[in-house]
C-alpha cells in the first residue's frame, strides 16, 4: 500500500513485518496432519520454508493456513506419512 509523500522517509527502509501478507492464498493443495500417525519428530516444522508450521504446547505440529503455500515439503519429509496434501479450500 502506498504511503503518502509526507510519510515516506528519504530512503526506503522496510520496517514492517511481512506477516501482513497472507500467502495462504497461493495454495492449491493444503496439508492436513493426522495426529494419530504423528510421532512428533518435528520434521515438518523443521523443513517448512515459510515458517508456516508451529509446534503446539502438546508437542504436536500445527499448520498456519494463513501462510502455508501448499508446497508439500512437510508431507514429503514426514517419516510416518501423517500429512496428506488435500485439494481443500484455500481458507
Amino acid at each position, binding site marked *: 500500500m502506498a*504511503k503518502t509523500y509526507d510519510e515516506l522517509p528519504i530512503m526506503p527502509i522496510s520496517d514492517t*513485518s511481512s*506477516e*501482513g*501478507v497472507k*500467502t495462504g492464498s497461493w495454495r492449491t493443495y493444503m496439508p492436513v496432519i493426522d495426529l494419530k500417525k504423528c510421532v512428533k519428530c*518435528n520434521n515438518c516444522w523443521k523443513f517448512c520454508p515459510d515458517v508456516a508450521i508451529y509446534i503446539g504446547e502438546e508437542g504436536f505440529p500445527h499448520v498456519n493456513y494463513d501462510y502455508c503455500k501448499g*508446497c508439500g*515439503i512437510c508431507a514429503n*519429509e514426514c517419516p510416518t506419512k501423517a500429512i496428506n496434501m488435500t485439494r481443500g479450500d484455500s481458507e
Partner: protein
Amino acid sequence: MTKLTIPAEEYMNSGHMACQGCGAGLAMRYALKALGEKTVISIPACCWAVIPGVYPNSCLNLPLVYTAFEVTGASISGIRAALDAQGKKDVNVVGFAGDGGTADIGLQSLSGMVERNTNAIYICYDNEAYMNTGIQRSSSTPEGTWTTTTPVGTTKYWELTKKKNMVEIMVAHNIPYTATASVAYPEDLIRKVKKAASIDGPSYIHIFAPCPTGWKSDPSKSVELARKVVTSHIFPLYEVENGVYKINMKPKKTPIKEYLMMQGRFRHLDDEFIEKYDKEIEKDWEKLIQKEAFTSEQ
C-alpha cells in the same frame, strides 16, 4: 516429544515472496538461527532481494542492507569497517548472495573481501542459475542442464561446461574456514554457520538450495533433492579449515539418475551422458577423499 535438533528461535517470518518449496528460503531460515540477533546482513540483486517483500515489508527481523548485484564482498567489507570503527566488533556481518552474484559478477569483490582477511561471513545459496531473472545459466550451472540461455533446442545446446567450484577457489585464497552445506541437513548447516561466525576473519559457506521453479521439479521434493545431491556424491558435504579438508558425510552412494530425473531441467539427458557424468562425479569424489587424507597428515 522429540527434542528440537536446531534452535527454536526464528528470525525470519512468514508472508514472504519465495516460491512454494524454495530451498533459498530454508537456507536463510537456518543461517539466521545460527547467527542470532546481533547480525547485519547484506543482500545483492538475487531472489533474496525480492523474497522479503515489497516496501515497507521485510520478512527478516534484522538490519538488511540491499545492494547492487556485484558488490556483496565489498559491501560487507564496508559494513565491517564501519562497525569496527564504531567499536561494535561483536556483530556478525554477513553477505547472502545467489550463485550468480557470487561465482560470476560478484567474484571479484568476494575475492577482494577474502584476500583482505575481512572479518565477515559470506553465504552463497546455490540454485545453479540466475533464478531471479528467469532461469538463465550461471557458472554454477552443472553440465547438461537446461536453462533459458542454454535451451536444448535441436542442437543439444544445453549447458556444456562444468560447475565452477567456489569452495576450492576459497581454499586457494587461504581462507580460514569454508564449507559446503545443504538444506536437507540443517543441523550440519547451522553448525557450520556458527563455526563461521566464531572465526575472526573471512569464511565462506556454499549452501545447496533447490529451486522447483527453475529446476522444473515438484516443490514438495526440494528437501529430498538436497539430500539426494549429497548421497549421490554430486555435492559432497565437507569443510576446509586452514587448508585441512574434512568430509562430513561419506554416504552409501545413491544412483545419480534418481536425482537427475526428478528434475525437468535434466530430462533430455540420455543414459550415455549420465554414465559419463557419473564417472566424473566419482573421480571428483575420489580426489576429495585424497585431499582429506593428504591435508590431515600435514
